[in-house]
């Protein structure tokens, strides 16, 4: 065994590094930078302004003193705009010329003083809706009552439908995660169900399974596949709700 293969084997045998989340918290595009020690999120909330959030290797917002070491520029439509640090909001802003929303953009970023610049090329399909993911990182609020939990599940499907209608299927994972959590929260009410308990347990399990399917499809599937998974989740929730409501009566 060569030294290289030995090292590789030893590295592979070590525990997997705890992987950080890559949720775009503001609904933007997410990148890793500086040898995976930084995470970037670029959002395009309005025609003339691009915003850049910079996070550390565990996707926590970068401290201000560290942000001050980051520099760079945006190239859009042949126009170069410097990154301007907005210290109060802890983000960078870049002004854009008048360009179409699908224009290819190029970000040249120097992650710290003296480091080599790195280039990111990307495009947007539409302007970013910053409000989409405001709650995606919070623990799912779990209602106290059965009726409210069931209503929350139906809301999750409505939220996901709304995202797809707005052509934001990439963010459907957020209501998918909430649907999973709401479905699991229904387990508290199983003891009230009597004879239909086995059926309700199976229905919860199916909702959890397809919520995961939707979650992963959001990440790795096509929009059509996301819609297919959402249709399935919607059908399962529509079947699950009456199992609980009939038994609770």
């Amino acid at each position, binding site marked *: 065994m060569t030294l290289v293969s030995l090292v590789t084997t030893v590295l592979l045998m070590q525990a997997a590094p*705890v*992987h950080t989340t890559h949720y775009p918290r503001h609904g933007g595009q997410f990148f890793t930078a500086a040898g995976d020690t930084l995470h970037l999120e670029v959002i395009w909330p309005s025609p003339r302004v691009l915003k850049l959030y910079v996070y550390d290797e565990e996707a926590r917002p970068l401290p201000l003193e560290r942000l001050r070491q980051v520099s760079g520029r945006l190239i859009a439509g042949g126009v170069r705009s410097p990154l301007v640090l907005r210290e109060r909001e802890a983000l960078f802003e870049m002004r854009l010329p008048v360009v179409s929303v699908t224009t290819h953009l190029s970000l040249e970023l120097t992650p710290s003083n003296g480091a080599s610049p790195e280039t990111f090329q990307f495009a947007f399909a539409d302007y970013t809706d910053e409000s989409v993911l405001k709650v995606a990182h919070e623990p799912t609020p779990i209602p106290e009552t059965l009726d409210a939990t069931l209503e929350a599940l139906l809301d999750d499907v409505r939220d996901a439908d709304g995202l797809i209608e707005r052509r934001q299927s990439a963010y459907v994972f957020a209501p998918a995660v909430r649907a999973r959590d709401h479905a*699991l929260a229904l387990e508290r009410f199983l003891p009230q169900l009597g004879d239909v308990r086995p059926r309700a347990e199976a229905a919860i*399990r199916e909702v959890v*399974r397809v919520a*995961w399917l939707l979650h992963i*499809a959001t990440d790795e599937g096509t929009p059509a*596949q996301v819609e297919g*998974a959402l249709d399935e989740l919607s059908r399962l929730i529509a079947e699950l709700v009456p199992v609980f409501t009939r038994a609770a009566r």
Partner: protein
Amino acid sequence: MRLPLAAATLLALAVFSWHGARVAAHITEVSPFTFHEDVRPILQRRCTQCHVEGGVAPTALVRYQDARSQSWPIRQALMSGRMPPWHAQPGAVALKEEQALTARELDVLMTWAAGGTPEGRRRARIAESPAAGPMLAPDVTMAMPAAFVLAQGVQEADHEVVFAAEGLRGKWIRAVNVLPDARAIVRRAQISIRSGADEQVIGLWLPGDEPQMLEANGAFLMPHDGTLVLRLHYQRPRPADAAAVLDRSSVGVYLARAPAAQIRSLTIVSARQLVTRPMRAVAIRPIAGSVDATMRIVAISRDGVRTSLLRFNLRPEWPRRYVFAAPVVLQPRSQIDVSVVPARNDLWHTLTSPAARAASPGIFFRGALEVVE
């Protein structure tokens, strides 16, 4: 500074490929669940009867390294519902010995497999072998009279053994079981009573199964000219395994202590069928049908009240009998309605291989409703 065209092209390619490798489009979460504390107990309860070194599954899931290397197949198998191989949901009546994961177990495994597969702290040593519960000893055990040889290079084969079983004639059989010899290749089995030209299936077996006792004091009477027929399906877990393997499995028979109620099999198909005599349904045994569909079996009373009995997807490689935890009373003039709905249960399959669903074999179902009268 101007770059030569070739250099500029190379630079552009480098930027794009580098950029492509670094775009983090996935949405992995950090798993709060670890292998040793949360995942391993579930695998031991649910998976390692087959997923163990020397088991029928091609991969082991006993050690951390095994499971970690399988995190993506685990996700696929769970999301598609392909594993664990229990493809039914109970209706109004609970099923016995349900082998599905609970919702919580499913979520723990998915979160762990998608969330960095953390190892966690080793717990006090847990037995590495599959969790073999204290299975009831059979009243009669019959070994195959001769070993079957899965020849070198042969991947799978079927084999039938007929036991004269004179000692069972005139006795009531409550349940049967298979005691596999070459565990790694005994993939499934069917046990029947043959009498003249008639044959009645009395048991299906899959690795890890417990003997299935039916409710309502139901049992199968062995006729005085009856023989016991064992049909085995052998399959190598890995195509690379080529050496010849010998198997001499046994059948375990559980007898009723007192006269029992004869179990009869009523054929049910994808249509509505009238019940003519009072009876109690104790199990449903699918025989054949559309693979890419969901079967829904409902009892409709003569007053029109619908009682869901079972919903399942047919998986021919995992034949099962679904046994009710309590018998279902069927009055004369009630009906059994079997509907077959094209399923979306293979949604993950379509996500990974959209063409796979293109050819549908048609929609149909045939099965046995096992009843006592």
